[in-house]
């Protein structure tokens, strides 16, 4: 009964209650389509922006972690602890350098030797002489995936670390490292190509790292200067490089 009454009321009311015309529906569809297009565009912009930020932060984090570790060890190079367990304390090359390593994209590797305290439960203060090596090694995956930066720690059996007592597993610091270069400078700021570690006053470190995913909509052409080499790149990856010099203050001159 109620329904009937209401229907009667509607039927007897004005024409405007009859519903939407075709034109109104079409206009609504067009306006709705504009809205959907705007939402899709906004989504793609937000998504791209988010990916870009995540990748940039990730690359910068890797750059910072890599550089911090290398700088810390180079500053320690040549440090001799009074309580070292090495009998012949001196006469060792605190910095060993290999230029243009095969299998690491032409990158360099560096090994630094110094004494490091050991945490012993007895409370006795003992230091081990260790060799800390930084190098690039191909990442897992198809060729061309990139390189990872590794740190290998070795407990030395003699002053020059020619005999190794303990070799710890390689520690991965960061992925997608494209190049790592070192340059060495002497007391007068002159470039040293061949050297004894006692001649080294400054070590220049350069690292180039790229993003895991492509973030740019189109290929970007840019040259990166790493050490003495210029690396041209033309793709959609984000890259960041950092070049700093370190003063290895513990090397006895």
């Amino acid at each position, binding site marked *: 009964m109620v329904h009937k009454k209401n229907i009667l009321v509607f039927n007897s*009311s004005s024409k405007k209650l009859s519903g939407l015309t075709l034109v109104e529906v079409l206009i609504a569809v067009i306006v709705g389509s504009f809205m959907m297009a705007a939402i899709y565009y*906004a989504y793609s912009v937000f998504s791209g922006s988010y990916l870009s*930020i995540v990748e940039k*932060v990730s690359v910068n984090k890797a750059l910072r972690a890599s550089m911090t570790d290398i700088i810390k060890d180079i500053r320690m190079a040549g440090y001799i602890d009074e309580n070292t367990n090495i009998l012949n304390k001196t006469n060792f090359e605190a910095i060993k350098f290999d230029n243009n390593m095969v299998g690491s994209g032409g990158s360099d590797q560096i090994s630094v030797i110094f004494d490091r305290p050991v945490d012993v439960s007895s409370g006795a203060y003992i230091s081990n002489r260790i060799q800390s090596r930084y190098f690039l090694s191909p990442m897992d995956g198809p060729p061309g995936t990139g390189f990872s930066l590794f740190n290998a720690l070795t407990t030395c059996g003699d002053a020059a670390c020619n005999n190794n007592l303990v070799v710890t597993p390689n520690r991965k610091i960061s992925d997608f490292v494209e190049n790592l270069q070192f340059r060495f400078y002497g007391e007068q700021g002159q470039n040293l190509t061949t050297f004894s570690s006692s001649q080294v006053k400054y070590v220049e470190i350069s690292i180039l790292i790229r993003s895991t995913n492509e973030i740019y909509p189109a290929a970007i052409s840019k040259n990166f*200067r790493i050490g003495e080499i210029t690396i041209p790149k033309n793709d959609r990856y984000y890259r960041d490089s*950092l070049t700093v010099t*370190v003063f290895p203050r513990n090397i006895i001159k």
Partner: protein
Amino acid sequence: MMLVRRNLNTSKIKKSLKGISLIEALVSVVVVGIGFVSILQMTVYATRSVDIAIEKNKSNFIAEMMMESIVADKKNAQNYLVNFKCDYKLMSDGTVSDRIKNFWLSSFDRSLDQNRCLGNDIKETKINSTEGTISINFHLGDGAQKKYLGLQLK
């Protein structure tokens, strides 16, 4: 039920059942569009903030490097007094301090984004021999983002 029936019969309610006009719909679309534009600008701002943070982070490393270079040659600390603007050029390479300053220039050039070096950007050292203090001042982002690093030499 009586209430419903009475309301439906009034002309005021009939008017309210008309819905929104095309003009009203378009106005609402424009208002929502303005909202979208402002949110899109926020993403640009977020990306730029990250770029600035990365730049500041790298400037930390470079400022430490500059400080370390001066400490390594502290007898000649006064020779490292310098103010680099965006149009800096390599030093003559005649003295140790000039070579070191060229290292710094090389680091600026390779590590910092030169496209964003603006008129008021500076990278300067301040050496006070009397007090034995060294300051490294970085002004990036047209001078808006400042970074100071100070050290007292023994």
